[in-house]
């Protein structure tokens, strides 16, 4: 059992939790993720590691309550325990394989969309601890969905942008990147974009134009998270990759986003869900992540 030591609501439907998991906390690195299963009959849900404390043995997770399982997670309180919490899964961010010297030479821009801010935080923090400065754009639809801004400001130069202009700049993360480059004269030699697929797709298109090498973090459907089922497969540069073991980070200029979106459309659109309800029959319990049945 993995005890929840802290719970905090970051917005109406975004939850932060510190969970006691010493083995995971002892070995994880930025970019990796965990799989959480709340009770015997629950699903295995992948969540990015947002922070970790090796001494206390805790892992911080942040999730949005979208489907049946994450809604159930959100009902857990401090002192309750998850039944299963496994990790760290996936490969660490490539930044972790560079020396401090190499890192200091890099000019890095992070583009974080919505809950994607959570996986960006440990990377920015990792850089900060090594004396490396970086810029972080946090974007969301509106002010209430901007999360972790205060923590992020302690470790990076933060630029906030909202689609409706209720906080920070008006516009999306791409608009903000263009602004930083054209108006503030910034140059970058690495971009890391993490957020919804559609946001990563367009971020990668822009950085391609701008000639900035770009890393994205993919989060397809997963079951085991250990390379055993192939549910998480995506096409990268014409090859099949398993996001759980080969990723979750990939070269954003090589990922087949349209293919990934087609697979995800199953879970995220009304028609997709209707098809799922039909195909899954009585086994459909809100697994589409939206209907909350």
């Amino acid at each position, binding site marked *: 059992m993995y005890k929840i030591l802290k719970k905090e609501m970051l917005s109406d439907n975004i939850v932060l939790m510190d969970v006691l998991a010493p083995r995971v906390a002892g070995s994880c690195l930025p970019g990796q993720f965990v799989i959480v299963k709340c009770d015997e009959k629950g699903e295995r849900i992948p969540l990015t590691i947002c922070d970790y404390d090796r001494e206390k043995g805790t892992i911080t997770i942040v999730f949005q309550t979208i489907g049946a399982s994450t809604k159930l997670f959100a009902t857990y309180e401090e002192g309750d325990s998850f039944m*299963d919490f496994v990790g760290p899964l996936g490969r660490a961010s490539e930044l972790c394989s560079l020396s401090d010297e190499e890192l200091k030479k890099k000019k890095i821009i992070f583009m974080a969309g919505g809950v994607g801010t959570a996986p960006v935080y440990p990377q920015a923090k990792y850089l900060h601890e090594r004396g490396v400065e970086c810029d972080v754009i946090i974007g969301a639809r509106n002010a209430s969905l901007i999360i972790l801004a205060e923590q992020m400001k302690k470790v990076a130069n933060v630029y906030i942008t909202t689609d409706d202009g209720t906080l920070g700049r008006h516009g999306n993360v791409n608009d903000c990147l263009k602004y930083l480059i054209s108006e503030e004269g910034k140059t970058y030699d690495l971009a890391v974009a993490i957020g919804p697929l559609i946001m990563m797709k367009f971020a990668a298109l822009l950085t391609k134009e701008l000639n900035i090498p770009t890393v994205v973090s993919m989060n397809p459907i997963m079951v*085991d998270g250990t390379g*055993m*089922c192939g549910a998480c497969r995506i096409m990268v540069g014409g090859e099949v990759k398993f996001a759980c*073991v080969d990723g979750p980070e990939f070269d954003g200029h090589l990922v087949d986003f349209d293919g990934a979106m087609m*697979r995800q459309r199953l879970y995220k659109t009304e028609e997709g869900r209707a098809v799922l309800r039909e195909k899954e*029959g009585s*086994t459909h*319990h809100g697994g589409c992540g939206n209907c909350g049945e």
Partner: protein
Amino acid sequence: MIVEDKLKRVPVREQEPAVRAKNFDEVCLGYNLEEAMAEATRCLKCKNPQCQTGCPVGIDIPGFVKEVEAGNIKGAYDVISRYSALPAICGRVCPQETQCEAKCIRGIKGDAVSIGKLERFTADWARENGVKPQGATEKKGQKVAVIGSGPSGLTCAGELAKMGYDVTIFEALHEAGGVLVYGIPEFRLPKDTVVKAEIENVKSLGVKIETNVITGKSVTIDELMKNEGYDAVFIGSGAGLPKFMGIPGEQANGVFSANEFLTRNNLMKAFRDDYDTPIFKGKKVAVVGGGNVAMDAARTALRLGAETYIVYRRSEAELPARAEEVHHAKEEGIIFKLLCNPTEILTDENGWVCGIKCVEMELGEPDASGRRRPVVKAGSDFTIDVDTVIMALGTSPNPLITSTTEGLESNSHKCIVADEKTGQTSREGVFAGGDAVTGAATVILAMQAGKQSAAAIDEYLKTKRA
């Protein structure tokens, strides 16, 4: 009960095909005491029992069959459990027809003795009557880590615990059992009654099991040995990485690896309404492959309500699945498209599977494996309308451990290189066996490897103690 015709085996009771095609209960119901004792009388008690040489773990088969014949089932269980930690499982999933029963002298003229069914009966009786295997009497004081809780890991752990070692199994998934829980379906191998009970038996020998630990990620082998005080390690991590064909359309919605399909149903229990796991219940399903995995996926899809095809590129004689599974699959109404190979998965405008395009094959000259190589019949394209395709093309070992353990050698198939008799790897104190070494094989071969490695680890630790 008297056996009239000694050439014929006592038939085993099974669920009717039409009934079982709609449920997940076990197909084979097994012998009762009377039937088992009658079947046991068919054993010829050979002086030089060939059956025993056909068993990878060398069970004293005439020894236990004799006890069954006398009605002393506890005695029979004591004989078996000296050799095997998982008899209720082996009795159900071993390919007996190519092992013990293939060597049975009774089988030369008539049916071989139903050794598998007798083993199953004995183990089931022991479980129902609370008989446990014997544990160690004295402790050796050395610690062994076992990676993976499939048949090889469970066997190795059980053997070492019986010798008095302090053994901990580290398992990546949330439940112990490996393929026994995530791969093989309930209707062949009941999870709660059979698998869990045999795992409990292994635990009752003193083995500890830590789930949710991914070796190579949560902790490395070097850390286990250096920081956590393990004197030896056995790697039984299996071959879980599924293969795909690389044909167009494989990324479509509705294409699954058999592992995903089976994991959702078996480990995550999608077939039960009280679990949260969703699964595709296709209306028409094509399963590509001819092994046990393909049969299990097809029979699972059928039970979920689909019209189901097996698409296999060689002929019936080459089907690698257990004979009983092929027979059961046919009885249940699975449609076999043999000598038939997929070339493309067809999709509709929304990216959903709507068919599978195949070509017919014929058998040509034998290839390196000795099996006749299938070659394409020109102009024989045809399409099967399906909405779901399940790929059961085999699996390879996951590189997680080899890539994080320095000096641990693997071969071009990503299999760990280990000595055939001892499981010794290129690293001192590290042993390996089962599918992780051989690539996807069988439960009993994995158990054999676990058992041999346990003996080798005992030797190794003896010299370390001295």
